């Protein structure tokens, strides 16, 4: 194989495996703490396993363990093929890989010990923050040098989205994490109160934008056309929605702080830009769907394509829900409730998760030069994941709206109808229980995938042969 000698695929393999490892870790903790919200004794009376300490572990492992591993795996895979050169430095790639995994492992140790700076999605304490900056710079140097030495002049759309992420994330990360260390495991943000909140949600919202959205759009733009062997539907739409997406997304942070004491003009700006964001988001979704129409007859047989279809559908759904929730009136009901938890998971499980799985199923046979062990198991995984997400968001919709409605309910004299907090919590228990079940379904799907991939890797080197499943299905009948 000429491709294996030309490109460094070892680094891609490494990140695929770390994606699976951190994926299991994050979802296992997720399912666990979901059940803790129904059965609090599931912390087994250990300080390390209480909800408050495990929740940051869950989110960090999911976003920075699973999603980032997928981003790095696909970035290394794609950039070499789109620039037609090997990654600039194998050595830097390896250092990046090990330092990155060291950081996530240290996060998995320090967060249960209670070392966190209390900023959502930026909980890691300052020594780890510095470690992150170190390997991110190493990665950036390698990535951009590869672009500089490229043999293919034109940079394809998929690459734009990765570039946008990699120039934006350092800015967000560094500004939000500015703090004064007062010990090896403790620091205080240099910003206070209202200012701190504003900067935190500028970061928090754009972590959603530039970690969980743009790289996965880039992933879609590369793997989707590759897989169906058809070009993306509209290049012009790519251009328009790329530039408007990155320009508009960055403004939307204050919608997390509606009705809080941040200045009113700021809240309104956040709300207006959130609503505007709907269009560039759907631009990406439409480009995906329209591309799919060119290969719609494959959907029936192909698990990868099904996952992409569901992924793009959930992208469309959650980017519709987001602007909706950023409208002041809807926010007054939904804010702080389980609805938001459901919204986030429809994005992460539906969009990020499904697109990641699709990319991994696409890459693994090619990387290990063999064929997928079982197409049937991939299908089983697809159904478990899809049912899991659906059950998850439906139970969280019901729970969240019930919660919001019960908080605000007053009787005809104007007194609160449900002044007792625990009474509301009791009502929500069954929905929260089903959320746990939904998470377990999704996790089971991931285990099926890992079994499938381990079996696939066992036959490494047996030669990858592309099979058109439609033809195969017809032949066996």
């Amino acid at each position: 194989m000429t491709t294996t000698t030309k490109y460094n695929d070892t680094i891609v393999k490494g990140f695929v495996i770390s994606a699976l490892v951190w994926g299991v870790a994050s979802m296992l903790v997720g399912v666990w703490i979901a059940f803790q919200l129904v059965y609090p004794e599931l912390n087994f009376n250990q300080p390390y396993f209480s909800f408050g300490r495990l929740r940051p572990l869950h989110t960090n492992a999911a976003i920075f363990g699973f999603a980032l591993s997928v981003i790095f795996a696909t970035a290394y895979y794609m950039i070499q093929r789109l620039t037609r050169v090997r990654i600039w430095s194998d050595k830097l790639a390896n250092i990046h890989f090990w330092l990155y995994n060291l950081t996530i492992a240290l996060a998995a140790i320090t967060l249960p010990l209670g070392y966190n700076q209390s900023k959502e999605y930026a909980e890691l304490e300052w020594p780890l923050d510095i470690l992150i900056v170190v390997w991110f710079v190493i990665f950036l140097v390698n990535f951009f040098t590869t672009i500089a030495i490229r043999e293919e002049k034109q940079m394809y759309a998929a690459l734009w989205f990765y570039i946008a992420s990699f120039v934006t994330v350092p800015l967000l990360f560094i500004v939000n994490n500015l703090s004064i260390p007062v010990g090896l495991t403790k620091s205080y943000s240099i910003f206070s109160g209202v200012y701190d909140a504003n900067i935190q949600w500028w970061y928090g919202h754009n972590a959603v934008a530039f970690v969980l959205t743009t790289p996965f759009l880039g992933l879609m733009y590369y793997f989707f056309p590759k897989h169906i062997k058809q070009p993306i539907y509209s290049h012009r739409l790519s251009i328009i929605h790329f530039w408007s997406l990155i320009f508009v997304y960055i403004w939307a942070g204050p919608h997390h702080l509606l009705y809080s004491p941040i200045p009113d003009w700021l809240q309104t700006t956040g709300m207006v830009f959130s609503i505007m964001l709907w269009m560039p988001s759907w631009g990406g979704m439409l480009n995906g769907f329209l591309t799919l129409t060119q290969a719609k007859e494959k959907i029936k047989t192909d698990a990868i394509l099904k996952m992409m279809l569901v992924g793009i559908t959930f992208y469309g759904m959650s980017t519709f829900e987001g602007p909706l929730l950023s409208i002041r009136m809807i926010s007054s009901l939904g804010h702080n409730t389980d609805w938001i938890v459901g919204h986030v998971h429809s994005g992460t499980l539906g969009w990020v998760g499904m697109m990641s799985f699709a990319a991994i199923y696409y890459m693994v046979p090619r990387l290990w030069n063999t064929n997928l062990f079982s197409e049937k198991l991939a299908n089983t995984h697809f159904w478990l994941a899809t049912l899991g997400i659906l059950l998850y968001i439906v139970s969280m919709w019901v729970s969240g709206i019930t919660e919001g409605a019960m908080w605000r309910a007053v009787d005809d004299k104007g007194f609160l109808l449900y002044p007792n907090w625990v009474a509301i919590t009791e009502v929500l228990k069954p929905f929260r229980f089903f959320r746990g079940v939904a998470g377990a379904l999704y996790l089971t799907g991931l285990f099926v995938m890992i079994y499938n991939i381990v079996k696939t890797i066992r036959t490494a080197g047996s030669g990858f042969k592309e099979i058109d499943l439609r033809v195969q299905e017809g032949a066996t009948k």
Partner: protein
Amino acid sequence: MKLFDIPLTWFEKFASKWESDGVKFSVYTFIAILFGGLFELIPPFFLSRTVVPIATVTPYTALELAGRDVYQKEGCNNCHTQMIRPFKWEVDRFDPQKAYGRDGYSKAGESQYEHPFLWGSKRTGPDLAHESQIQPSEDWQRRHLINPRETSPGSIMPAYPWLFEKDATVDAESIRKHMEGLIVVGVPYTQKDLDSVESSVQGKTDGDALVAYLLRLGKDTANLVKTIK
């Protein structure tokens, strides 16, 4: 449609040029994302009305600060907000004694010395911004932390008995360092505050500190209302 096409074609012409120039493309991308950040992050610092100071709001005492550290360490902010929105149902729920007059919602001045802010984003348990006025009993707070089910049957909060164990004592030296760090970022602690750390946290457990912190929440602004009366 033609009208719509003109600006698109115009823009596409530029954008297509950048596609083959990595440096230009990255720089323009960076500029595009800077706009929103600059517009939203910089002006609040220069507008005097972003935070109107409240006369009675003062920094936490050493023991309260130790309690706040415990609050952060245990991740209480993952389930409890400290942000009461200006709605009747929130003000009624979180200011039942009407301790804040007609304005029982959160104001910017209340979190002036909060490094970092702890407003939270999920209200699995009740809001705590005014906890000192809702449940002022130290004994209740202690029993609730040791076993939430004893004071609130059906609660799904984890129990925190270990905070009150003998070896979970507050370390005066580190609290002093924390206060010195906070001075650097602008919290007006005095030399007197620093000198009294030792005596203030002597023999106290993490649990005592956390209770002291909870019983401080909302006290400043409630005091303000009392002085106005």
